[in-house]
Structures are given as C-alpha cells and as structure tokens.
C-alpha cells in the first residue's frame, strides 16, 4: 500500500466520521423523525353531555410517542411519553394528565364504522380505513381518565377531515362535579391531527 493510499484512506475516514456526526447532530434532524409519534390540538363539536338538541365545543390536545420509538407501548412496557388535555366548554368537564398507553397504526374498524362514509370537498366518497391513527390512553393526577383514537385523514387523497373516535373521558368540572363524555366519531372543526411513522396495520 503506497503513501497516497494511506493519505486517501485517512481522508476517507475523516469524511465518514464527519458525516456520521452530522447525521446524528441535533441541528440537522430530530432523532425521532419518521418514528411513530402524534401531535394533535384543536376543537370539535360533541352532541353528548350537552343540553338536549344542543351541541358543545370540546377543546383537546395530545402529544405522544413511545420512549423506544416503537408503535405500541404502555406505562409498564416500553414507556409511553406525552400529555393530554380535554375540556368540554359547555359542561365544564376537564381532564389533564400523562399518556400511559399508545398504539400507532391505521384506523381501527370500530372507528371507521363509527365515522361512517366520508366525503371530500369534491364529493369523492370513502372511509377512514387505512388512514394513520393513534389510540391514546392516559391518566391524570386529578383522577381523570382519557381514551381517544385520533385519525390523520387530511394528508392523503381524497382528503377527509381529521377525526377523533371512540372518545371516553372522565374527570371533574371546575366545581369538582364528576362528569364523563363519550363520543363515537367527530370531525375536527378547527385544528389538526398529525400521526407520523405509524405502521400500516389497523389499530384494534
């Protein structure tokens, strides 16, 4: 091996090292890019827990990912990370706590059935089947419990509204009155659901 070979070898190693460091460096890419995670926030209208023949505005918020970037995790296995907030502006029910369980996949059959047929702005019909979804469960220090499936339905054609499904929330009002909300499926009125890195298998 000649001297030139050694020189080129050394420079090659230096270049590879630089690329390796840069590829892992914070300024270039979030280390969880492309891995399963969810962010959601906004509001929708519920027809449960409101006055008869009336609707109620619900604000909600979710963040979540599994500590080891897997698609399924809980508080006891592959720790789930994130928080949830839920507030029914009509009844005053609020729930606030940490995410304890996450499952990333595509829309569960129960959610798709609850949502029924969907239509985009051009009248194209379809269902929520196959859209990225996350099933989130949580528990709060305030005694609240939270379960919701969120579906990211507006990122592929035909674009349907982002939707929350299979909502089951318990908590208390500002006056500490116990309340509970359940919802089959509701499209967001404003806000957004982003489910990224979910595997292409239906949630259960």
């Amino acid at each position, binding site marked *: 091996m000649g*001297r030139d070979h*050694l*020189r080129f070898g*050394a*420079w090659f*190693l*230096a270049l590879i*090292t*630089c690329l*390796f*460091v840069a590829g*892992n*460096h*914070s*300024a*270039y*890419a*979030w*280390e*969880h890019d492309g891995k399963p*995670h*969810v*962010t*959601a*926030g*906004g*509001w929708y209208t519920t027809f449960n827990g409101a006055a008869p023949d009336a609707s109620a*505005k*619900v*604000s*909600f*918020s*979710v*963040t979540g*990912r599994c500590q080891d970037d897997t698609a399924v995790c809980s508080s006891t296995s592959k720790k789930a*990370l*994130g*928080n*949830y*907030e*839920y*507030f029914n*502006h009509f009844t*005053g029910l*609020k*729930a*606030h706590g*940490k995410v304890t369980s996450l499952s990333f996949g595509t829309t569960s059959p129960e959610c798709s059935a609850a949502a029924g047929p969907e239509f985009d702005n051009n009248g194209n019909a379809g269902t929520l089947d196959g859209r990225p979804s996350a099933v989130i469960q949580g528990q709060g220090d*305030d005694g609240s419990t939270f379960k919701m499936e969120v579906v990211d339905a507006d990122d592929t054609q035909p674009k349907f509204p982002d939707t929350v499904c299979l909502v089951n929330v318990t908590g208390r009002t*500002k006056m500490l009155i116990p309340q509970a909300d359940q919802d089959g499926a509701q499209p*967001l009125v*404003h*806000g*957004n659901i*982003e489910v990224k890195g979910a595997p292409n298998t239906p949630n259960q």
Partner: protein
Amino acid sequence: MKYTAIFLTIILAVAGSAFAQTTPPDTSVTAAAQGSYPAGTAFDGILLSGFTIGNGVIIHGDGSGAEGHAGLSLIGPALPTGGQQVINVDVLINGGSSSAANVATVTGTATVDLGNGTAPLTGVPVVLTIAANPSDGSGTVGIVLGATTLPTASINDGTMAVAPMQ
C-alpha cells in the same frame, strides 16, 4: 501524513465529545382551555372578550425545532344576527423553545378566519407563550398574532401543561 493523522485525531475527539453530550428531553406543550381579555383588547379593529385554545406541540429537545398545531378561537362582539363573531386561528407550529420550567414559547404561521365573511388571512406569523402551573393545570397564554400583541391572559377554565417527555 503527520498532519493528516493530527487532523484525524481532532475529528475523532470532536465526534467523541458530541456523543458524550446528553440531548435534553423533548418538551410537550398541551392546552385545552379558555380565558378572558380585559376591555379594549382588539385584533384588526375587532374587540375581543376572550379566547379558547387547543394545542398539541412537541418541542424537539435537540434544538431542531418543534411540530404540532394550535387551534385558537378569539371571541368577538355579538352579531346582529345572533351569536358572536369568532376569529378562528389555525396555527401550524414549526419552532419553539422552553427557556424555563413549565414555560414554552412556540412559533408558527396561521390561517386567520375573521368570521365576518371575508377571505381568510394566510401566512400570518404567530408566537404563543404558555406558562403552566403543574400543580393544577392553570396558567397564562400570551398571543402575538401578526403585528398585534394581545395581553397575556390567565385561563379561567380548562388546563394546560408544559412538561418534559421523559
């Protein structure tokens, strides 16, 4: 050859120190709440009495930005036809930091629907500053919408959290 060896040694030392550093945890910023504004608060000439907020944001612990969304409703005056004028603000979050415990500032661009039949405003820069009390989920929300800085307001119902994801 000697210089190459020295250079290579320095590169490896830098790489080693980079890996030795611990990346701070990501920060979760969540809110589902409502609050009131003092009399005289206005946006684009529209008097505001309060707001609602629903946002879910992850601030990347490695400093590479943030992602998420905020849905704001700014409550305006009563309409002659009944109800109230509501300004809906949909914010796509792409930046943020948490400079102190339980406090986060997130930035993004918004679509603003003034709720008066005019075409929505797009690409409006937004800065949200959320300070949350971890004991009960109360706190304050500061909103800068375009060139308008709305007064920092305490939430009067609902909850918020700014917490490390770890």
